[in-house]
């Protein structure tokens, strides 16, 4: 066995790898949250609930329509994204001119409604969702046995995050979007339908949350509380990464997973709180977050 500083390296690596699986979800969720905040200036408290909704929709598709995991990866985000568009049109769009506080409170309310309905429907003990046939089994990593599905989650999340970042930073669509956040009136005058752009952006951010939800279903089981357990952490990730910074969210998401993993090895009880300690330290030393631009 490998030894470092008197520690057996295997367990540390093992916890680190498991941490990265959690980090993959943090990254995906904070990515959507950062997109929405960066482009709409809305603090989307409903993000966790919509993530849960993604998992619930996947469960529904499987149990009522016999639609399996792979199609659900596409269908569930579309359905939940459409729901997001509806929310944006009917409510959120009315708040752009007001203080951040109101967007936060509104989406908090939406989260309570969605989660409450889910809890009424399914109870709070969670519904099992099995791993798709093709990703069953486990891979020997030498220091641990890793279920193949969890490896897939890490890879898929990484690819999605990088793709989203590239789209926003390197393509004309991304450039227009960023321009619209800087100066909506100006972009509008170039003939771009800014409200529609904003609406679709919100839908896309929500779809990312739902996608994370589908991917999470086999790991954490479909649980009405899965969103509220994670939303606060994901907020912290976005704040630490720098609100609105896409790359910051992605890196912080994965990094936090790793950090939590190591904490689980050294001081397991503190793994849930390490993110908040980090957030306080970051906000006091770099107010705009690790990757944010100082305003």
């Amino acid at each position, binding site marked *: 066995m490998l030894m470092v500083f008197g520690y057996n390296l295997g367990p540390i690596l093992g916890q680190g790898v498991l941490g990265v699986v959690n980090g993959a979800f943090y990254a995906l969720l904070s990515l959507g949250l950062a997109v929405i905040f960066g482009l709409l200036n809305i*603090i989307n408290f409903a993000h966790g609930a919509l993530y849960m909704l993604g998992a619930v929709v996947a469960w529904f598709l499987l149990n009522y329509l016999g639609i399996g995991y792979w199609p659900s990866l596409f269908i569930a985000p579309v359905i939940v994204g459409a729901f997001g568009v509806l929310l944006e049109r009917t*409510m959120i769009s*009315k*708040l752009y001119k007001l203080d*951040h*506080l*109101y967007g*936060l*409170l*509104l989406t*908090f*309310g*939406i*989260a*309570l*409604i*969605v*989660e*409450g*309905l889910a*809890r*009424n429907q399914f109870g709070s003990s969670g519904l099992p969702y099995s791993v798709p046939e093709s990703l069953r089994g486990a891979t020997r990593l030498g220091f641990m046995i890793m279920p193949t599905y969890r490896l897939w989650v890490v890879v898929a999340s990484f690819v999605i995050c990088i793709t989203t970042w590239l789209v926003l930073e390197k393509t004309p669509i991304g450039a227009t979007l960023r321009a619209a956040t800087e100066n909506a009136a100006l972009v509008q005058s170039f003939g771009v339908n800014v409200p529609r752009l904003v609406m679709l952006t919100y839908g896309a951010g929500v779809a990312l949350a739902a996608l994370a939800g589908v991917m999470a279903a086999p790991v954490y089981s479909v649980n009405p509380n899965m969103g*509220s357990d994670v939303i*606060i952490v994901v*907020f*912290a990730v976005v*704040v630490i990464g720098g*609100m609105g910074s896409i790359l910051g969210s992605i890196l912080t998401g994965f990094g936090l997973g790793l950090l939590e993993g190591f904490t689980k090895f050294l001081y397991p*009880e*503190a793994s*849930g*709180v390490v993110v*908040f*300690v980090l*957030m*306080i330290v970051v*906000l*006091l030393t770099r*107010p705009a977050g690790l990757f944010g631009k100082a305003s």
Partner: protein
Amino acid sequence: MNTTIWGFSRPQVVALLVMIALFVVAPMVVYPVFLMKVLCFALFACAFNLLIGYAGLLSFGHSAYFGMGCYLAAYGAKHWGLSAELCVLLGGSVAAVMGLVFGAIAIRRQGIYFSMITLALAQFTYFICTQMSFTGGEDGIQQVPRPAVLGLLPLDNDMAIYWMVVGVFLLGFFGIFRIIHSPFGQVLKAIRENEQRAISLGYRVEQYKLMAFVLSTFIAGAAGGMKSLVFGIATLSDVTWQASGTIVLTTLLGGLGTIFGPVVGAVIVNTLEFYLAPFGSWVTITQGVIFVACVMVFRRGVIGELGAKLKVAL
């Protein structure tokens, strides 16, 4: 209109008398333990309102102070045999000390960042509560006796402790009212309206904010302390971030920056909880609907809208 009694305007005096009359009548018709719960949360909401309504500071982690007040009062009653008023004071004082430390950290940032830091600190408190042995972990501090007031007046009877809760509530309520109408409170409002101008007028804004934070946490802690004496139990439920969310809702619904708003908010929120609880998660759903309605339709809250209609400040 400008005649005032201790700073209360005439409509406020009327509202106050109605409120006190209701305190006297209500226990004859309503389950007293439920009323006491309402009063504890009303006081908590008033304390929270002092910050958001008058200093413009949204603390998203106020349950930390309320919950810590619960724990300390329960611990004092159970293990140190303190009398009732000392338990409540202990809860408030410890919360205030926490408020002093946490507030000093949080007020260094503004707006949403202030909220985020208060949230992080509250989560940190939650973690401490799950780890420290004195809180009893997930089981909480159970079977807390109801100590006598000053060691003399027993509170075993529900009505006896009810009057104590009413007394503490009114004390806190008047205290907050006096704070708001003091020169200190005026400066707070100035900071809320325009922080830059307050600074340029020579006010040490940070000290004012910190003072408001400490006062608010003291009252929140005392409210928590009362709750644990009433129910004989202190648990993690009161330290969760969801509890912080509920108190934001309570205050928003009643009316931010109104005197009676938080009380009305607490009555509505707790009544809904009481009557909807048997039907699964309808409490949560209704709270969500109220949030949405408040933000979309009446941002001033029940009392704020009522006051605007009657053209009086309530």
